[in-house]
């Protein structure tokens, strides 16, 4: 009887660990890029497509980058003819769904650039998910969005 119980507990813990390991790896990132900005600009944007390949909703709770003072996620919205940027406290990606950050819509706002960032370089951004997992994405700095390129992140 106790063997069965132990087995159950161990299985349960194993499943928890396995599911935790899979959450961050369940996100796949496509077309992560940042438009090169004028050298004098201290703020840059980050755009990307994020797919959630798991059966659970995943929330991005925060983001950071060692190249910037802080990273926020904003939604550009037009209200009464005025473009407003609305800070998003978190970004929910539905199970088996995806979201797209692109010009004129959702975007990462990279605030307080610490050093020059030129075309061809990479801006690493670490995303913290609601289950505590972290995943780092690489924004490619360029003039125009690239064509489809898949990057899978497994942790």
């Amino acid at each position, binding site marked *: 009887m106790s063997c069965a119980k132990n087995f159950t507990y161990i299985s349960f813990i194993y499943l928890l660990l396995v599911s935790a390991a899979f959450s961050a790896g369940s996100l796949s990132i496509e077309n992560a890029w940042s*438009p090169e900005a*004028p050298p004098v600009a201290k703020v840059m944007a980050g755009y990307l497509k994020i797919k959630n390949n798991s059966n659970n909703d995943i929330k991005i709770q925060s983001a950071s980058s060692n190249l910037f003072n*802080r990273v926020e996620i904003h939604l*550009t919205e037009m209200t009464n003819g005025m473009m407003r940027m609305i800070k998003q406290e978190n970004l929910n990606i539905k199970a088996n769904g995806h979201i797209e950050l692109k010009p004129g819509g959702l975007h990462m706002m990279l605030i307080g650039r610490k050093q020059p960032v030129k075309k061809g370089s990479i801006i690493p951004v670490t995303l913290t998910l609601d289950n505590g997992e972290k995943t780092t994405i690489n924004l490619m700095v360029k003039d125009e969005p690239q064509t489809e390129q898949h990057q899978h992140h497994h942790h």
Partner: protein
Amino acid sequence: MQSEKKAASKNFILLAAIGLISLAAGLWISQQVLINSNDTQVPQNLDATVLPNARPLVGFNLIDQNGSQFSPAQLKGQWSFLFFGFTNCPDICPTTLKVMQSVWKTLPTKMGEQGHPRLYFVSVDPDRDKPETLKSYVQYFNPEFIGVTGKLNELDKLTNQIGILYGYDEKEDDKDLEYIVNHSAQLILVDPKGRMRAVISPPHIAKTIASNFQTIRVFYGD
């Protein structure tokens, strides 16, 4: 007998002269009427919103990226695009300026040629955007673009006439230099008489803006 003939020919010459002058004057007047009759019409089927009654822009006193005056006088003599924003804008401003850079690439004219427009990027964030910052910022997109800013009350004189709105998100504290500015993202087209003639609303597409501009230019004249 001879004197009568001379008088007759003198009269004839006089009448002919008057006739020619009248003809010339008549042609000139009708030309003027033709050109000006389009002024309150609008070209059809454009994405841009064209105002049948072009609105004179008056009474503002701002400063450009070189420290020179930017006032109604600078809007006269050529077509001008106006776009309002700020340099700490990550999304809309760089995207729009890149679109306008594409528009510039397809223009049939060069700087200094008749019909060649200007683009003024007006910063509604004078606290952070000093003329030198603006110059560096706009010239990244195109060396022809001109940055403008000024005191808030003068900016308001311009934005109010056009109908452009802007506002600041709450600053964290007095030292906060990372606040966000919300602003209207329409491109405004001003005619060579310094009058607001068209409004181009987002999303901004280079091809559309370029062709709309040529149509408007031809319709109203340079």
